[in-house]
């Protein structure tokens, strides 16, 4: 054991303290999970101001709901679930397309891959079309599953859907992507 090593308080202890009214404990939790929550939201919105706005609202909601947090799930999952709700509301209210195709994104997305540059642009536009046609929840599943490699179980935990439901939705999305890959998507 290292002498003088600083003891990092566990989530459980911080939650207990925060529930008892210790705001510094909640502050510590916020700082611990701000990165994960902001990155999670940034998967659906590229506008940084909006990402911060939704993340702040997520933590404010977590502050008032912390006592109802059941410790069966990890705090991170619970926070992501709150964040997801914020994102869904935002998407429904503003009908935002979650994939932007600005020049930066295009450059970063270009890989020596399935298409020549011209076809990549076409495919990108079709992918945007697919995203636009999807329900917000399906957009989120597509992004989490295909963009970030979340498992069906993880997505089920965050979205509150059953694993079977996530599987079915993911299958339908896979079909759409396959059609896009094979050039059959209209």
């Amino acid at each position, binding site marked *: 054991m290292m002498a003088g090593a600083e003891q990092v308080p566990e989530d459980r202890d911080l939650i207990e303290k925060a529930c008892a009214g210790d705001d510094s404990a909640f502050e510590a939790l916020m700082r611990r999970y701000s990165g994960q929550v902001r990155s999670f939201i940034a998967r659906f919105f590229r506008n940084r101001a909006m990402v*911060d706005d939704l993340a*702040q609202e997520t*933590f404010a909601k977590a502050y008032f709901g912390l*006592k109802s947090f059941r410790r069966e799930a990890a705090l991170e999952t619970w926070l992501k679930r709150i964040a997801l709700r914020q994102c869904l509301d935002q998407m429904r209210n503003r009908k935002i397309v979650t994939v932007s195709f600005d020049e930066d994104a295009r450059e970063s997305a270009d890989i020596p891959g399935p298409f020549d540059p011209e076809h990549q642009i076409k495919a990108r536009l079709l*992918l945007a079309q697919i995203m636009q046609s999807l329900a917000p929840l399906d957009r989120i599943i597509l992004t989490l599953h295909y963009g970030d490699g979340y498992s069906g179980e993880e997505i089920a935990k965050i979205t509150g859907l059953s694993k079977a439901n996530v599987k079915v939705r993911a299958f339908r999305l896979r079909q759409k992507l396959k059609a896009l890959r094979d050039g059959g998507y209209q």
Partner: protein
Amino acid sequence: MNPTRWNEWVRRQLQTGPLEPASEEFFEGIWERIREQAASLPMQGRRTFPEDLRTACWQTAPLLAAALLGILLYAWYAPPEIHGPRTSAMDSYVWDAALPPSDAALMYQILNVEPGSGTEAQP
């Protein structure tokens, strides 16, 4: 077409760049929101609403249980002049309503029951 490359392409399309760390203003903004939302709550005790609800449920549960027990005891032990014949009315009502007269008669015959009495006929 190579599926692995295709998946990689889709993944890149759906990914976002790295985020810079949250600023101090970000955290201050959260506390500001919390203060605003706390101020707009109608009562100070709003934060403990689930606990209040749970307590209220526990307090009223014995009363509700006692009331339910009373209703059951009354239904079971009340004299017939209050609740009427215990089974016959219901039996004949259900059968007569559900079956055509000929079928109802047949049913009474099969079950060896007097129509409308709810009691078994004597052999």
